[in-house]
């Protein structure tokens, strides 16, 4: 005859193993899904970075053409180009016509960057860079939009649930791109290249940047930003607001003195660094 107590102990022991296994298996599966999500997010973040780099490279080329701190901006341009090149190579979606076109534009762009680094005043290379960085941006934006769409859940409730965070995630890094764009536009005006067009663009970029900053803080229905109540986040944003208040008059001023120009470049770099803190914090808050 079987001993019922012994059987019970063995069964309980077996059950607790099964229980631990179930928990582990489920946790592993959820972790796998989370990993996949993180991977998708990282790919998007890389594209946000590419968007900003495309603007920054054009800005650096223009600064070199003005013989402004050439040693520093030449070194930086080289680093930026290498970073961009690495990011482009990570785009595996080679089937897409848009990705193919992006690669082609980039190959020529990179060649012209090398020319500029050899001769800061090569007008043809500078023209190619300042015109084609827009083409790079357009293609990156197109690929980005496609990737954003595919990374969203197919389930409408989940989409609604994640919508607010998603809108913040996809827009939080844009001010850094705008800062680079504004400086490029200022430099184009300074060099008297397409002045009317770039003046118009500059005003639009300033308006958009200001609206985004306000949206992060107070919310914006059209931009679908809800605003934030997070004290840490608001604190970091207030640093950005202070910098913006100092920068805006300089961006809007028609002609800058040498000192004002220096301040504009320095403060813009500071804005870039401080806003990167905002981006990192925002992504941390979203992940929690």
């Amino acid at each position, binding site marked *: 005859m079987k001993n019922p107590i012994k059987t019970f102990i063995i069964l309980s022991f077996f*059950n607790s193993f099964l229980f631990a296994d179930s928990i582990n298996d489920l946790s592993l599966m959820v972790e796998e899904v989370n990993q996949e999500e993180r991977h998708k997010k990282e790919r998007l973040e890389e594209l946000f970075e590419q968007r900003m780099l495309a603007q920054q490279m054009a800005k650096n080329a223009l600064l070199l053409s003005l013989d402004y701190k050439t040693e520093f901006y030449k070194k930086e341009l080289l680093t930026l180009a290498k970073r961009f090149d690495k990011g482009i190579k990570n785009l595996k979606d080679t089937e897409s016509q848009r990705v193919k076109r992006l690669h082609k534009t980039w190959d020529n762009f990179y060649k012209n960057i090398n020319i500029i680094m050899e001769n800061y005043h090569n007008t043809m290379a500078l023209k190619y860079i300042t015109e084609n960085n827009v083409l790079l941006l357009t293609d990156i934006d197109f690929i980005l939009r496609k990737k954003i769409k595919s990374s969203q859940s197919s389930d409408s409730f989940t989409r609604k*649930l994640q919508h607010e965070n998603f809108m913040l995630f996809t827009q939080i890094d844009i001010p850094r791109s705008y800062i680079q764009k504004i400086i490029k536009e200022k430099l184009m005006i300074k060099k008297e290249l397409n002045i009317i067009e770039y003046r118009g663009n500059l005003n639009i970029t300033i308006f958009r940047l200001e609206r985004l900053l306000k949206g992060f803080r107070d919310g914006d229905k059209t931009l679908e930003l809800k605003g934030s109540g997070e004290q840490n986040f608001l604190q970091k944003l207030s640093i950005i607001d202070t910098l913006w208040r100092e920068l805006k008059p300089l961006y809007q001023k028609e002609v800058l003195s040498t000192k004002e120009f220096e301040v504009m470049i320095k403060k813009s770099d500071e804005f870039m660094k401080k806003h990167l803190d905002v981006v990192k914090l925002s992504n941390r808050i979203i992940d*929690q």
Partner: protein
Amino acid sequence: MNKKIKKVSIIAISIINISMGSLLMASEVNITPEIDSIVIEQKNKTIKIERIQDDKHRLNNNFSKTSRSCPPFCIQPMNIANVKTVGELEVLAFLKNLNEQSHSILIDARTSEWYRSGSIPGAINLPFTMLKKDGKYINKILYILGANKKSSSWDFSNVQQLMIFSNGIWDKQASEAIKSLLEVGYPSENILYYRGGMQSWCNVGLTTI
């Protein structure tokens, strides 16, 4: 004689006052008059679940918020099909039994970002999004939960007892998870719905991890 009675009365009242005072000083924020805390094991760690002992404590996190846009954050019905709805004491009893008899799982059905911001000790995260009938994970999940595939249908006779929760009465992530499980045939008697969720749990100051 009267003087003596008065003196004794004063002493007695003083003793009562002192006792009451020390009783008040020693008062604790218990779960019930009989239970002050429970202890569970999670990932080889011992976790004591109790209420926050500061009787002046106020919530200042996400769960102090009263209003959220609906949809998506709409008030949920008390019952979902035939699934039993439970409260905090049942959750605590369920958690206590997790250590003793197993075969039950407390599921936090929220998406992982919510889970990472704090959950009920002993709960595992299984987002409702992974339980969709036509999703790529549901078969594997059912298998892990003890269901057996028999030709085209599932045999649920050996499945685990699940208790499911999300953020609370304004959040349908738990309802969605339960509906998905019922849709694939998971027996309603093997599911419990903690409707109050994280909001109620935090409202009474119970331990979160």
